[in-house]
């Protein structure tokens, strides 16, 4: 159970851990699945951009504008290096949510094979976060396409027995999460990606819960598009990434229209710039891109394999602990097989809100409720869950407080 890096040193890189919670308690932050904390490296990178390089990128030939453009395009290159892809294929968005909406709308507007039309089929799963369900659901409604999905088994895996009915010759897009944000389960994607490609469909990976936590080889996985949010990866709020294969992005229509994404414009007609600019209208979120770069470098320095293995250690310790508490039921995967560092549970007879409220008294930050995944929650037959999620700054004592606080919550209501 020795961490592969100095967790105490890591924790001290994150200033928020100096704050006191309710009742003077220290912060036990177990909600990184919702958003992660930020190290000084990221905060300072944003500050440095504002104090040293700030100007509108791509729009001026003066010294500061050159600096700003170099910083922004340098950030793009760093993201590309992190993903081992070409920098032209990296599009900055404000969030994964925007990234998924961008893809759905761009498919809708695109011509030919990439376009989505009435009768086409779009495939998702019951695991999805609303951000990877609603853009496709609403796209289907607008176009007359048909939304299909893989059902979830109660262990958090996907039911692939009917894969041939779900993915058919009519399928145009398959969009699935790399890891459930509620249960931590990792669906078996290779057969799904293979089936999608076998019928000429595009595979979109919602990598929100994976990219920050483990090495992901997008080329080896064979996905066509991927999206994630910076704020869950130790980066700033207000930045996300879409990666897509250049030969596809090059054929796709823009999402946002405005400055810097055009080739030429008249009152009645316009043509578009090459990728990635085509998908980045307006003065971009420059400082946030630079902050994300700092975050990815920070994570890379520690090493994604190390981060992942430490999270697995924490998860296993927490999972065992929770499973041993009488009155507590862990949902989804019960073992360390095919799962990441997220655990959902319920306490008998208690509403998750009440559980979370007592845990808060211990300084424990967990999320309670439906976690923006209502179909999954309904499938589980619960009103919501309490969810603990881990990141590189957590240590075993955080898990100890977690377990103590869950028992505390159970007992608080029992004895009254």
């Amino acid at each position, binding site marked *: 159970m020795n961490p592969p890096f100095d967790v105490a040193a890591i924790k001290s890189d994150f200033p928020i851990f100096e704050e006191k919670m309710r009742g003077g308690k220290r912060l036990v932050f177990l909600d990184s699945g919702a958003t992660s904390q930020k190290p000084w490296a990221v905060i300072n990178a944003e500050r440095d951009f504002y104090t040293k390089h700030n100007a509108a990128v791509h729009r001026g030939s003066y010294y500061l504008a050159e600096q700003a453009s170099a910083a922004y395009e340098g950030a793009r290159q760093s993201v590309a290096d992190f993903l081992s892809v070409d920098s032209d294929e990296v599009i900055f968005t404000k969030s994964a949510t925007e990234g998924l909406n961008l893809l759905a709308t761009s498919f809708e507007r695109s011509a030919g094979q990439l376009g989505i039309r009435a009768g086409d089929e779009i495939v998702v799963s019951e695991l999805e976060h609303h951000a990877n369900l609603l853009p496709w659901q609403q796209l289907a409604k607008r176009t007359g396409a048909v939304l299909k999905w893989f059902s979830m088994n109660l262990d958090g895996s996907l039911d692939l027995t009917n894969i041939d009915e779900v993915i058919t010759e009519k399928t145009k897009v398959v969009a699935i999460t790399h890891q459930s944000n509620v249960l931590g389960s990792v669906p078996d994607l290779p057969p799904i990606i293979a089936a999608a490609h076998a019928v000429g469909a595009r595979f979109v990976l919602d990598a929100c819960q994976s990219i920050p936590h483990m090495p992901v080889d997008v080329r080896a996985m064979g996905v066509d598009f991927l999206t994630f949010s910076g704020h869950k990866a130790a980066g700033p709020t207000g930045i996300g990434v879409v990666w897509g294969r250049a030969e596809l992005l090059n054929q796709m229509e823009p999402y946002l229209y405005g400055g810097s994404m055009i080739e030429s414009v008249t009152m009645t007609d316009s043509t578009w710039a090459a990728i990635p600019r085509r998908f980045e209208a307006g003065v971009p979120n420059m400082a946030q891109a630079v902050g994300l770069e700092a975050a990815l470098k920070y994570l890379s320095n520690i090493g994604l394999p190390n981060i992942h293995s430490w999270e697995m250690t924490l998860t296993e310790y927490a999972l065992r602990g929770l499973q041993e508490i009488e009155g507590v039921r862990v949902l989804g995967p019960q073992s360390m097989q095919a799962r990441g560092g997220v655990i959902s549970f319920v306490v008998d007879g208690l509403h998750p809100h009440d559980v979370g409220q007592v845990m808060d008294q211990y300084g424990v930050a967990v999320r309670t409720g439906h976690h923006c995944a209502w179909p999954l929650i309904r499938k589980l037959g619960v009103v*919501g869950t309490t969810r603990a999620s881990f990141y590189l700054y957590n240590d075993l004592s955080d898990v100890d407080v977690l377990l103590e606080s869950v028992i505390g919550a159970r007992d608080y*209501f029992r004895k009254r």
Partner: protein
Amino acid sequence: MELDSLYQEVILDHYKKPHNKGLPVGEIQVHHVNPNCGDEITLSLSIKDGVVEDLIWDGVGCSISQASASIMSDLVNGKSVAQAGVALREFTELMQSKGNISGDEEVLEDAIALAGVSKFPARVKCALLSWMAFKDAAIQNGAEI
């Protein structure tokens, strides 16, 4: 413990044995949801000669939302629309007070037990859910509240 100011005895009693909870039967039914947490309430009532009657509700949610619905139903059933309106406004104000006021027991009766909720901003919506449903149903029943 700070928590006890939130989870008053009265609240847990109402939570465990909610009043006026059952299948709403009135013609006009309202359904409210707290999208943050998924708490839901369905509620019906009738208004006869300016008096709130037959308020029945059903729902799922945390102890705060369930207790608040139960307390509210006791409080407004049988009251005039005007009196219920006073309670509604006073309760809303209490919830938004961030712990700075304690509420008038004359007006709010058991609902003053919920005063502690106002110190927990994330729970205010839980406590208000049923009251907003009541307000909506009253308006749909033609009351000016």
